[in-house]
């Protein structure tokens, strides 16, 4: 083997929130850090230019470059990369570029509930985490400071807090206020959704200026992206390289990770050495990388003595409903979503059906029917012109309301991602193949959510609501490198260290034993921060 092109004490693969946050923290502790990204690097200015010039811009990946050497699934082309093994489609999307999927994330930053950490022992379904809420609570606080989370301390979100949010709550939209009046006294308790969007200038970033396009892109930088921590890592001395696709994790005779193999966009290969290795390439690419790293020491793939790498693939599945309110609510002004109903995440029925959260979306029918484009086109087709056309469009769009509920999906070892050696990407790396099924538990949640949506719209006063049919992907990929204390039944331990290899850590939502009914990013960030000390300790051993 030729001499390695790159070497560092700590090598981190993947520059999304999990990897970038750890890179920044580790570099600030004085460690030598190399952060390796498969995809390209872009800037806010370039991404905005792409977005504004695109005639078809209403989808999460629209502003971002698509690289042949680092393909990614997207809502627009859902089956262009993932091979669907069925029976149900796995339609989650993610980005492959420096900063990862935080470029297009919504920024909702909820904590999990205490009960989310012991679903199995309390309700007899799913799995337990190897620790409880009290263990992660301080790390949630640190993650909220790191990302910059707004929230209202007066709201009961079911997750006790030992410190305030670092920023005041985001002002509610006119639409939120109309919902608030309509839901007052109902069982549906409206709260301000904690979100990593600046309500005031914070950490060198601007306050929100209400572009209403958190997904796909925030033009002001008020929304947190992992660029913040990529740049912090660089300032602290970390080296960041992009367009380097890691495709092999190499082991030495002692089954410690000795290095990584990577490919460049032209297909040429190179290698990276280090002392401690961290995989943070999200919950499809990380297990795929482990599984294709087959060698004498790892015939079933790296870190896979349990056979669980790639298994228990989960997403958050959505029911979306939309209607026309009786009176204007003026959507599409302010952040995409500011308030939500969270008290439907907990209850004694969790053994029978999932908890879910209902977000009140401030985007009209943008995601339901590609509005306002759709209403404009339909209004024009009716033959309207001039002032009458303008009035018709304004009347309809100003009354558009959309709400969506995100349900918990249980872990199932049969739901999995495997490398497809028969179908490879442009540089010869196997593409991910999913085997995936929406279970009855999730479907029961969908049915209850639809009833709840009808009731909520009933309180507001709308026409007959329309509902999405089959479950929609929340693009929250989780669970493919399960965390647990028993090496026979888990891939990583509670410090996110691979049971099989002491100098290998796996960050991100891949480690989740269960997915709860809360957006995963704040927990990803908390777990990354919590893993920093064990990673540093490993370096000195």
């Amino acid at each position, binding site marked *: 083997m030729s001499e390695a092109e790159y070497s560092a004490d700590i090598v981190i693969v993947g520059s999304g929130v999990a990897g970038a946050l750890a890179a920044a923290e580790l570099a600030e502790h004085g460690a030598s850090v190399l952060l390796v990204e498969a995809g390209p690097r872009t800037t806010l*200015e370039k991404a*905005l*230019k792409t*977005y*504004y*010039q*695109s*005639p*078809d*811009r209403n989808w999460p990946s629209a502003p971002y470059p698509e690289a042949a050497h680092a393909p990614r699934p997207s809502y627009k082309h859902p089956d262009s990369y993932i091979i669907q093994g069925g029976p149900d489609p796995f339609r989650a999307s993610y980005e492959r570029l420096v900063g990862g999927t935080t470029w297009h994330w919504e920024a909702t930053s909820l904590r999990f509930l205490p009960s989310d950490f012991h679903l199995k022992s309390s309700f007899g379904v799913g799995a337990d985490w190897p620790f409880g809420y009290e263990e992660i609570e301080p790390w949630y606080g640190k993650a909220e400071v790191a990302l910059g989370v707004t929230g209202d301390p007066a709201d009961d979100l079911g997750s006790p807090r030992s410190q305030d949010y670092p920023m005041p709550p*985001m*002002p*509610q*939209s*006119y639409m939120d*206020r109309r919902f608030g009046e309509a839901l007052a006294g109902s069982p549906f308790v409206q709260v301000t959704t904690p979100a990593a969007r600046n*309500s*005031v*200038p*914070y*950490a*060198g*970033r*601007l*306050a*929100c*200026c*209400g*572009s*209403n*396009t958190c997904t796909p*892109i925030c*033009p*002001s*930088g008020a929304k947190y992206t992992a660029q913040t921590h990529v740049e912090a890592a660089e300032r602290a001395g970390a080296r960041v390289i992009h367009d380097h696709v890691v495709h092999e994790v190499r082991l030495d005779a002692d089954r410690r990770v000795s290095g990584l193999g990577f490919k460049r966009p032209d297909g040429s290969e190179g290698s990276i050495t280090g002392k401690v290795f961290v995989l943070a390439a999200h919950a499809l690419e990380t297990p795929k990388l482990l599984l294709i790293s087959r060698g004498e020491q790892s015939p079933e793939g790296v870190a896979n003595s349990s056979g669980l790498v790639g298994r228990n693939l989960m997403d958050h599945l959505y029911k979306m409903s939309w209607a026309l309110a009786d009176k*204007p609510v*003026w959507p*599409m*002004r*302010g*952040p995409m979503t500011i308030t939500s109903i969270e008290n439907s995440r907990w209850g004694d029925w969790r053994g029978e059906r999932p908890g879910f959260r209902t977000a009140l979306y*401030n985007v009209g029918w943008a995601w339901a029917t590609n509005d*306002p*484009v759709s209403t*404009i*086109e339909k209004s*024009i*087709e009716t*033959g309207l*012109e*001039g*002032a009458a*056309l*303008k009035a018709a*469009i*304004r009347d309809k*769009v*100003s009354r558009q309301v959309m709400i969506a509920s995100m349900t918990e999906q249980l872990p199932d070892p049969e739901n999995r991602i495997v490398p497809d050696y028969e179908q490879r990407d442009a540089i010869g790396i196997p593409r991910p193949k999913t085997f995936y099924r929406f279970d009855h538990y999730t479907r029961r949640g969908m049915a209850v959510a639809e009833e709840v949506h009808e009731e909520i719209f009933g309180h507001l006063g709308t026409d007959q609501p329309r509902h999405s049919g089959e479950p929609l992907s929340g693009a929250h990929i989780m669970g493919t490198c399960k965390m647990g204390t028993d090496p026979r039944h888990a891939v990583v331990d509670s410090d996110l260290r691979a049971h099989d290899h002491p100098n290998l850590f796996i960050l991100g939502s891949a480690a989740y034993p269960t997915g709860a009914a809360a957006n995963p990013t704040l927990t990803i960030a908390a777990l990354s921060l919590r893993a920093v000390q064990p990673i540093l300790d490993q370096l000195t051993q």
Partner: protein
Amino acid sequence: MSEPEARGPSRRQLLQVGVAIGALMACSSLSAMAETTDFLELSRQLTGDPDLDPEIGAVYHRALNSDPKLGPALQQLLDNGDARSETADQVKQAILRQWYLGIYREAGQAHTASFERALMWPALGFEQPRGTCIGPTGYWSEPPAH
């Protein structure tokens, strides 16, 4: 902690597409400009907007003219004034779609002529296009002023 001064994309950045359109305009002949004047007049009638951008109008005009079906119908409409026919209605609707969405089609491909000057934004009460910095934090708590 320092507060950055920039507030998102500038108007200049948004108008970069418009600059490219201006370069195209320089090649236009006088007769084409006269026809574009007629196209703009028709556009004003259809949209009810007296303040349409002529450079953007030239792009829409060229794009519609190049359409094998709608091009001849547009010419007829501009030559003969208002005509009630299915094809004439299709041309009018195509013109309205262009101005409202800021998008034109050429050789089967959609292109953005002007994101910022699309008529949908003022029609919906937006002070600035959705996707840009629209106003100070909290402006969204009240309905639009216009």
